[in-house]
């Protein structure tokens, strides 16, 4: 009963607020009433694309500057502060530098691939954005399997990363690309499986329905987000970790770790996660070894994600109330303890056997 009143209040005045962009768009399109149907269609999609690009690109640029400043502070030095107020225009400078700097193309590199790789990565990232619902009926590209589209596009980045590695045609970049792909593939599985419980509970792949399922509040205060359910929490953690790996952010940024490999192939702007405490992680956690990452993925992340699915099922069938909550927590805790026992980390380290592809 209480929930309804709150919903009602929010509903009324928020309704106007969140539709602001939609109204703007309709206003713009009204200019083109004279044109034929498909022209209008193209125009509306163009508007969407343009809006998206503007928001995210600027956001990325801002983020990179912020990141370098915070890192600087962590490493007890100043971040970029020359260009523009507090160095805020640094990304613009970088952008210009990128453009005007002479595009060094390795000698016998595969020109086409070298050129296409960065474009493809950027395209994939942007395409993924098209599916995310920024607001009520503000998802640029509504298709039934939204989530699936998101991950399908995500998986194309592997190919793109490889093309980048292959394009520069030198051993090190090749090696880096191989590692990145291996890492990304092995973490793609947990990434998707952690999303599975959400999809199971909501019963649909479209992001709007998932968001809609999380409306309303329990006890008036706590929003009924999945994060607050035990399996939701673990799923989020797992999702977040595999996200880091996917985008080769620290602590899993082995592929383009400056210290280890000379010319990383990854450009900062290609990461498609924008959580703020990214930078915190980047600064604090040490770099992990590639085989540890893989090991961790297959032996810990995958089982844990499966348990999330089971926990979600338990939670659902136990009536979604407090009892369900406790039961699924119990399941997750049990599995976690078993797994940690199994993966006894104090294992003595056997001499490393190098296996090379002939």
């Amino acid at each position, binding site marked *: 009963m209480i929930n309804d009143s709150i919903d009602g209040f929010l509903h009324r005045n928020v309704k106007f607020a969140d539709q602001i962009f939609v109204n703007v768009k309709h206003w713009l399109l009204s200019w083109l009433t004279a044109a034929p149907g498909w022209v209008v269609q193209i125009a509306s999609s163009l508007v969407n694309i343009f809006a998206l690009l503007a928001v995210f690109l600027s956001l990325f640029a801002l983020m990179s500057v912020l990141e370098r400043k915070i890192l600087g502070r962590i490493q007890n030095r100043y971040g970029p502060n020359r260009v523009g107020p507090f160095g805020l225009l640094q990304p613009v400078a970088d952008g210009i530098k990128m453009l005007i700097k002479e595009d060094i193309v390795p000698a016998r590199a595969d020109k086409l*691939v070298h050129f296409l790789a960065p474009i493809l990565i950027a395209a994939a990232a942007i395409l993924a954005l098209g599916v995310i619902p920024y607001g009520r009926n503000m998802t640029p590209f509504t298709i039934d399997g939204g989530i699936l589209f998101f991950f399908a596009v995500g998986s194309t980045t592997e*190919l793109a990363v490889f093309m980048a590695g*292959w394009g520069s045609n030198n051993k090190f970049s090749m090696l880096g690309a191989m590692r990145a*792909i291996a890492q990304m593939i092995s973490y*793609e599985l947990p990434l998707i499986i952690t999303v599975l419980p959400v999809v199971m509970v909501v019963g*649909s792949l479209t992001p709007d329905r998932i968001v809609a399922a999380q409306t309303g509040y329990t006890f008036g205060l706590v929003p009924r987000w999945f994060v607050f359910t035990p399996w939701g929490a673990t799923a989020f953690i797992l999702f977040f970790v595999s996200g880091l790996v996917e985008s080769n952010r620290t602590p899993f940024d082995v592929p383009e770790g400056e210290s280890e490999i000379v010319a990383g192939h990854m450009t900062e702007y290609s990461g498609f996660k924008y959580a703020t405490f990214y930078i915190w992680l980047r600064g604090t956690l040490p770099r992990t070894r590639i085989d540890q990452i893989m090991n961790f993925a297959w032996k810990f992340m995958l089982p844990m994600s499966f348990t999330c699915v089971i926990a979600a099922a338990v939670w659902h069938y136990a009536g979604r109330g407090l009892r369900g909550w406790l039961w699924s927590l119990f399941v997750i805790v049990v599995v976690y303890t078993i797994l940690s026992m199994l993966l006894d980390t104090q294992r003595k380290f056997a001499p490393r056997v190098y296996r090379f592809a002939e």
Partner: protein
Amino acid sequence: MSSVAFVLLAILTLAAALAAATLQKLMHATLSFAVTLVGVAALFFLLGAEFVGLVLVFVYIGAVAVLIVFTILLTRRDVGKDRGANWRGVLLAIAVFGGLTWAILKTRSVAIVVPDVRAIPVKRIGEALMTSYVWPLQCVGLLLTAALIGALVLVMEEKR
């Protein structure tokens, strides 16, 4: 379903397919193969089977293309330039294509116009999979595991 989109996509896929068949450099051929698959996925979207399109993208581009690329990496030493496509193959392909199109054009009953396009909701596919197609699903699962193990065994280095 806009015929414009269809024409564009058709041209894209066919061009990429031909490129995959004829490009000299192996890597380019693979990548054009990937592009053809994207084109096919897009065609699926046009035909309203989005889920299948996404699965196609997922499976082929996400896994198969990467596999192919890895295989290419693992077998790079054979740098010998591939001397041009031998003509017998080309002739045969063209003959087959001619035969197929002749057969298709000949059968009258097929030339029906596309009804209104309504994508099949993933929910119905899910239900179908889980109810009447449960048994094939299990079999495919088994097949995939078997293929996985098979591939591994083939590729794994014997401990000498």
